[in-house]
């Protein structure tokens, strides 16, 4: 009989793997964006707007945002599990974290497809 407690964690390696896969996706995006931004063209509004209107950039940014959302959840939840001991407070903070992440993601989509 395994005694399982509501800590907010899943038991298994999924989150471990998620944290690494999302990290790699975000690293690739980071390098691409750095190359584009530091590629020599001065960033005016027209250049900036045009960049975020292109299909590939929208999709890449969405993939980054989705990876970030999942990555944030695993990471922030780990911090809360380690340092916040009272169950009620931890659960409250975890729910607030999830809502914040959902809001970030929704806002990003709104910014991208306007």
């Amino acid at each position, binding site marked *: 009989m395994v005694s399982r407690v509501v800590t907010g964690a899943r038991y298994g390696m999924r989150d471990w793997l998620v944290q690494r896969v999302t990290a790699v996706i975000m690293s690739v995006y*980071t390098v691409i964006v750095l190359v584009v931004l530091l590629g020599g063209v001065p960033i005016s*509004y027209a250049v*900036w707007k045009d960049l975020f209107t292109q299909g590939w950039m929208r999709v890449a940014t969405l993939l980054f945002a989705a990876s970030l959302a999942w990555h944030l959840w695993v990471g922030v939840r780990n911090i809360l599990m380690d340092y916040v*001991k009272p169950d009620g407070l931890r659960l409250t903070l975890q729910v607030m974290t999830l809502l*914040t992440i959902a809001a970030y993601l929704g806002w990003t989509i709104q*910014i991208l497809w306007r």
Partner: protein
Amino acid sequence: MSSAAAKKNRPKYLNLQALLFEIRLPLPARISILHRISGALLFVAMVWLLWMLDRSLTSEAAFEAIRRYAGLLPVKLALLVLIWAYCHHFCAGIRHLFLDLHKGVDLASARASSWAVFAASLALTAWLGAKLW
């Protein structure tokens, strides 16, 4: 759910105050706790960064306003801290991936790669900060 059961068999020093002030952390542990701190900082700062991205894509006038805003000294300093947080989290994360593959897990290489993370993240911060200024 029970707190007593949750505490059972957990490591003893998962305690922020002890980690930050009472235990003299070895270098790889400093990298590790800074990984957490930088991650938490970026999570909180996301709302500000998204706000700036949002405004900068609204109109030409809003873009110029954000550019002026980003030129203010306190804003620049805050951005520099966030750039450092991103670079540190990035470099420490890559080190972590190598550790996952069992590369560099002995003490000497773990220390050496910790120095490399510090050096690389500070160098990247300086480089990107110079671009910002």
